[in-house]
């Protein structure tokens, strides 16, 4: 794939949002995708207002080139054409490139990235990619200091942090993961919970499994008179962040049940048990009869834990599955820079608790080889890598979002 560079003389044109919206056009049908809804959150602006790019002339040229590049790379490149509503991701058949890429950041997609990198090694041994974890914050600050070529992050960059980056960057969503509300109750295979009840349980306001509020939701299940042991993450984690964001969005408004707010670390009530990492949480749930906790689907599946069905925005109880999570992303409000929150999304078949993750990369790479290598890796994640994600219990992106992500990949140039 090669970026087409236009020798634009139109030096006054700055990259504007319109340019970016134009890339949301499906290359085949030329039908504009549904306009991104803007009320999502405060991270709509791509540039901080008042943040002047250092190299305006180069940037202008770049912007013009980018628009053309999107059309060229998506229309005429090796990515097999697919209608935007197709479920199957496009086939990955880019020309192999040589290079070396280093990334760091979010640990939750770490397994997926590691497997994808291993697979890519088999396809193209000349491209060496390393992904070190360290957490989303580390990834973002590493990218700010240009220590890495790409950063994994579970959270979006705050508006005031934009100027810390060495240039313009793009969000590339890669995978989603359902967050399971797992429990340890002998003989209970299905459990229905509403966001309100989940909030009350995790704030230790409901303390027994035979509480009327739980019994009412599960008329067919015999619930024991056992105390509920709440298990939560000990470490600062994107899973906690997304779980609490869901509760905040669903029942955390003014006068709502959920009062702990949201964040990677919360002020949990005394008596909650803390497990280190998803593994620690699943271990604690397995060891403690009557325990309930939240963790990603992959770890819950490995540990053989059952997850509750959670009532979504439309009032339907949905089990935590990969399909229901992809459905949630299709109903999520996606900003034009591809930031979104997949939890508490619209749609009758959407599972309401999930995490999303992005890769951040600078639009302007030091040289063409580096840019090609990055595009190669990221394109793989969004094409053949999506099937790999399913095997690893991550949810693939819905077609529309994936195509938009591919368009963002195409913006990366030198």
């Amino acid at each position: 794939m090669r970026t087409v560079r236009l020798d634009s003389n139109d030096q006054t044109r700055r990259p504007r949002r319109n340019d970016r919206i134009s890339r949301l056009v499906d290359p085949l049908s030329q039908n504009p995708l549904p306009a991104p809804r803007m009320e999502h959150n405060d991270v709509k602006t791509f540039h901080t207002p008042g943040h002047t790019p250092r190299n305006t002339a180069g940037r202008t040229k770049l912007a013009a080139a980018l628009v053309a590049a999107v059309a060229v790379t998506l229309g005429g490149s090796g990515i097999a054409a697919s209608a935007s509503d197709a479920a199957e991701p496009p086939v990955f058949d880019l020309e192999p490139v040589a290079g070396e890429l280093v990334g760091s950041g979010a640990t939750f997609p770490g397994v997926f990235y590691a497997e994808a990198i291993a697979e890519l090694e088999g396809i193209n041994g000349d491209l060496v990619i390393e992904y070190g974890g360290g957490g989303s914050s580390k990834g973002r600050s590493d990218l700010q200091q240009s220590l890495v070529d790409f950063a994994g992050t579970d959270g979006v960059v705050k508006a005031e942090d934009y100027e810390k980056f060495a240039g313009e960057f793009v969000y590339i969503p890669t995978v989603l993961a359902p967050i399971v509300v797992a429990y340890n109750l002998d003989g209970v295979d299905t459990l229905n919970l509403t966001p309100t009840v989940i909030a009350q349980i995790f704030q230790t306001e409901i303390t027994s499994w035979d509480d009327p509020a739980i019994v009412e939701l599960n008329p067919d299940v015999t619930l024991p008179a056992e105390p509920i042991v709440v298990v939560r993450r000990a470490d600062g984690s994107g899973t906690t962040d997304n779980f609490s964001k869901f509760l905040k969005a669903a029942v955390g408004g003014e006068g709502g049940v959920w009062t702990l707010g949201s964040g990677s670390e919360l002020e949990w009530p005394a008596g909650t048990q803390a497990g280190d990492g998803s593994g620690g949480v699943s271990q604690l749930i397995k060891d403690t009869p009557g325990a309930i906790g939240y963790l990603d689907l992959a770890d819950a599946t490995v540990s053989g834990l059952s997850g509750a069905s959670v009532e979504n925005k439309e009032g339907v109880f949905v089990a935590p599955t990969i399909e229901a999570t992809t459905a949630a992303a299709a109903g999520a409000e996606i900003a034009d820079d591809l930031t979104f929150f997949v939890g508490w999304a619209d749609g009758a078949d959407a599972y309401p608790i999930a995490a999303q993750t992005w890769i951040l990369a600078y639009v302007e790479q030091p040289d063409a080889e580096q840019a090609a290598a990055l595009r190669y890796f990221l394109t793989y994640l969004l094409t053949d890598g999506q099937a790999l994600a399913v095997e690893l219990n991550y949810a693939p992106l819905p077609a529309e979002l994936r195509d938009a992500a591919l368009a963002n990949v195409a913006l990366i140039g030198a």
Partner: protein
Amino acid sequence: MTDLSVHPVPGQQPPDLPKLPDLRGRRAYADGGFRVATLAAGALILVILGLIVITMSSRARHVFAHTGFGFFTGRRWAPNAEVYGALSFIYGTLLTSAIAVLIAVPVSLGIALFTTQVAPPWLRRILVGLTDLVAVVPSVVFGLWGIIVLGPRLQGWFRAVHGWVDGIPVLDRIFGPVLGSRSFLAAGIILAVMITPIISSVSREVIDTTPQTDRDGALALGATRWEMITGAVLPHSMGGIVGAVMLGLGRAMGETIAAALVIGNAATITINIFSSGDSLPSVIATQWGEADEVKRSALIAMGLTLFVLTVLVNLAATAIVNRGMRRMQGS
């Protein structure tokens, strides 16, 4: 007896001595070189310490600008509400280290005295090897053992102990209600297991330096083995033993992974040692990855706090040793 002294005696001519080659030039050179090399090595420690303090202070300044001195006195730690109080973690660090030292010191001294004074040589060899072996076990192994093996068993014990003291004032607060196995006491026990080999190894070496004549003298005066130990061995090695305890205490205060795994990770201040809490290094380790600007600076400030705390504890201990030494050696 003839006078062999070469020193001039007043009123007497010094005897003629044969001229010796002057070796001082070369020696002075070697001395100087040695002096510079050791000075550099010594200064390097100071430079490193200084740089650590400077960089950490500058990185920690965000949180002090944000919270002020309340960082040390605030009990509430709520990064998502931008409240940063480290008091509960300082408390947790001190409490778990104190528990660890309280448990580890008698056991370590017992091991050290047994191996040096009581055990037959063949058993001594085995014991020395084993304690040194335990000293090199990585802390994460202890932590995992703590959560998988020790923790679940401790919970039952905790419940039983709480049952015994229920109704007794103060004691039923210290051995209070049990919410789970992860607690200050569990962390203290794991830390005790970890620091015992260090304290006992160093104490053993120190106790071994007690002159045989001192011990023989005590025994010859009719002392029992116990009186020999308390009268001759311990006074002689007191300074070294306290040094060993300080080494152990330092490790306990700074221990990260094992503590993080078993302490329960909750910001609490309570005298209930069965309650879950958290310590400075554990918070730093578990929260670093997802920490943003001010929170990150708060974590660095905690590192600085831990550093200062360790220095203070060590200074206090040195002062106590010096006073104790004077008293014991004076007697």
